[in-house]
């Protein structure tokens, strides 16, 4: 386990910077585009200080 990765979870960056639920979708038969973006950056814990 890479500690640098694990450490991201402990940061308490301002939640205002984070993506906010629910994600928008253009059509109820689709799923929000945001999920694809998140899946394809899997393992990346997202914005963090200095990010």
């Amino acid at each position, binding site marked *: 386990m890479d500690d640098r990765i694990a450490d991201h979870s402990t940061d308490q*960056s301002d939640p205002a910077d984070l993506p906010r639920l629910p994600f928008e979708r253009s059509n109820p038969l689709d799923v929000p585009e945001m999920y694809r973006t998140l899946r394809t*950056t899997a393992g990346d814990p997202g914005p963090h200080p200095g990010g």
Partner: protein
Amino acid sequence: MTRVRTQAGDFAWLVSGYEEARQAFADPRLGRSAPDPDRAPRISDSVLIGGPRGDVETEKAEHERMRRMLVPAFSARRMSALGPHVQELVDGLLDRMAEQPPPVDLREAFSLPLPVLVICELLGVPYDDRAYFRKLADAMTDLADRERAGAAKAELTGYTREILAGKRANPADDVFSDMATMDASDDEIASLAAGLLFAGHETTVNRIDYGVLLMLSNPSQRDALIADPSLTDAAVEEILRMAAPGNHGLPRYAHEDVIIGGVTIRRGEAVIIVTMSANRDERIFPEPDRFDIGRRIGEQQLSFGYAARYCIGASLARVELRSVFTTLFRRFPTLALAVPVEELVEREASLTGGFTRIPVTW
């Protein structure tokens, strides 16, 4: 795994990939209760999924006890034995629909009454009470009005308590009669029973509606299904994979530090598992946004969850959906939406989502 802000503004980990979703579902250190409930991040104002539920000390034992009480009543064998009767109900509802002049609201005429009829018969709840408990079920899933949702939940539990008392006096061959004799408090049984009445229909109604819309938007798939009914099981799994009513995920709280997908989730933090995203993971389902009933995906999709909390009604829902999709388009080959799909109105304030009406012609 991504950090997000919930609808309530708190911080949570979002699980969007397939393997991570399975890992999260299967990890016993993630539960519905939170170690420090008063400080736990809130997901939304919803009564049902808004925050932690239960107590970390007792959650596992209570959950296992609940499953021991309910799982036998909904076994795959018992559900397939119900198949012929479900088929009669499907045929009967479609006969009545055919007698009406189109356009007809498919939801009102078919997709809502079917699961309600089935769950009423199975549980032993009077179908004539449907307008009453449906109103309560609707109020319970109100995301905007927490007080209304809470009051509805309490009222539904009161209603099932009365029914259970009746079953004790006059037992019948139904699930509520079995439950009435279980070794548990009245409150516990009534609340479980109310949960079944609720879980047992809203979810299935929406999968029927979404399945119809997916088929109508992909006529080659509909034609393939009409031509070869042996594709039904695969079609139902593909519908379950793609149907995404209710834009919400399943919440969990870490009871201790857990590493999932390379990140550490600290004790007390919230995790939201998004099955609609996991079901479109391109690493598992190539071209995930394509509706293709020819996929060989078995029962891999995660719409019923996975592992310890795997949906108790999955076999029942599958029996209903298979019956619906072997019959509907053979009976109404020219079925079409009576309005453009963009004009369908989503039940936005509702947890289970779906559409208010599905006007169809044929």
